[in-house]
């Protein structure tokens, strides 16, 4: 199954109802088809995966292809890998990536490798992969965003996000006192009483 949209026979801007109708139609076809039961189960699984992928994207929970495919003129090199990752089958995704011949290894390959590592929690490997992807294709925003978020964390960015209320009254007072001392050194006076 390469593209869930083609599989369901719906367009990229289909509504939820269109998708539901397509699902019912294909499910009906599978049930009535004259094939063995095991084959029926396989096909139903395929259909369910496609349905989930399309519906998730529509509801905005994942962006399996939409945004990314735009970067590639509507055609991602590894859409099957992205799909595996989105449905949580990391091992399958990795197997596909490892099977790719070396002349096809691109920035996207490194990026997806990084995504798999990150999902597993292997952040150092993910960092290296994102870095390679970014150096191969510096203009790609998807890779840059992934890299920057890890890079920001690695510099302790999570700390600055919450410590904003540190400047209290004490800071103001000490600043004023310092300013007063400086003024006095130069012969002036900022706070007359001290």
């Amino acid at each position, binding site marked *: 199954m390469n593209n869930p949209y083609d599989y369901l026979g719906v367009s990229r801007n289909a509504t939820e109802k269109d998708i539901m109708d397509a699902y019912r139609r294909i499910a009906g076809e599978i049930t009535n088809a004259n094939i063995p039961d095991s084959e029926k189960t396989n096909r139903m699984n395929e259909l369910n995966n496609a349905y989930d992928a399309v519906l998730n994207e529509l509801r905005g929970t994942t962006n399996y292809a939409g945004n990314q495919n735009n970067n590639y003129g509507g055609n991602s090199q590894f859409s099957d890998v992205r799909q595996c990752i989105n449905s949580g089958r990391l091992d399958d995704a990795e197997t596909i990536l490892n099977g790719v011949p070396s002349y096809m290894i691109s920035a996207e390959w490194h990026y997806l490798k990084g995504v798999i590592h990150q999902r597993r*929690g292997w952040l150092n490997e993910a960092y290296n992969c994102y870095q390679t992807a970014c150096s191969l294709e510096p203009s790609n925003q998807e890779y840059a965003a992934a890299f920057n978020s890890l890079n920001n964390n690695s510099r*302790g960015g999570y700390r600055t996000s919450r410590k904003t209320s540190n400047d209290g009254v004490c800071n103001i007072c000490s600043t004023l006192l310092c300013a007063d001392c400086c003024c006095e050194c130069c012969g002036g006076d900022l706070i007359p009483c001290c």
Partner: protein
Amino acid sequence: MFGYVTINKPELKIKEYEAYKGVYCTLCKEMGKEYGFLSRFLLSYDGAFYVIYKLGLSKSEIKVSNSHCTFNPCKKCMKITCESNIYKLACAITVILAYFKLMDNLHDSSFLKKVILYILYPYFCLIKNRAKKKYPDIFEIVNKGMAEQFALEKDENAFLDKSAHPTADILSQLFSYGETGDDKEKAKQFGYQLGRVVYFLDAFDDYEKDVKDNSFNPFKNCDDIVDASTHTINMSIGALTETFNKQNFNNFSSIIENIINDGLSLRMDRIIQKYRGEISE
């Protein structure tokens, strides 16, 4: 690798600190009840954090009452209880981890220390068996992970992520134990990253000793120990914070935030100081 998961006290509110102490006290008492008086000395801050995290996720009501410390009867402390068996679970985990810590120390310590540890050994076996009987699955998780970790440290080619995997995996399973659905998935991620932080903090702390004794350390091949470890640990704390933000905590969320954000980085800063201080001398 004990005692890294602590609070950053100055950043806590008094009531949060009281609650934290209350959980610690209650866990201590529970240890005494479950595994005998001596076992109370095994208590660690990591165990307290485990209870805090689990109580935070728990949906049942938490009861607070006043009580006294057994070691110091004049000192008052809160008793924080919950209907579920979180405390019992945390006790079993503490005992089992302490047992494996002892086994680990038996392998690499001086003769004199070994003698002392061998005297303690039967006692640890006894309480370990008691915990194993109650939670055989927990024992299996730790046992398997520790065996993997031990085998991995013989392998000189193990890279950073791989070397932390067994420890991280143990914590991932312990933290998600008993959770269901979406919570389980997130608790898994949380535990995994926490395991990485603890493992790398420990490796960072022991770096000098390991280099001197020529024993395994994941940062051995790195050029600059401080840079490499802060980079790695910071990334994991960041991921921990992200997972924390995605989870819904019913209680203690500010304490958990304090521990994973300020507590862990405080520990890291202390270790950095240790190295930086020595460099400047």
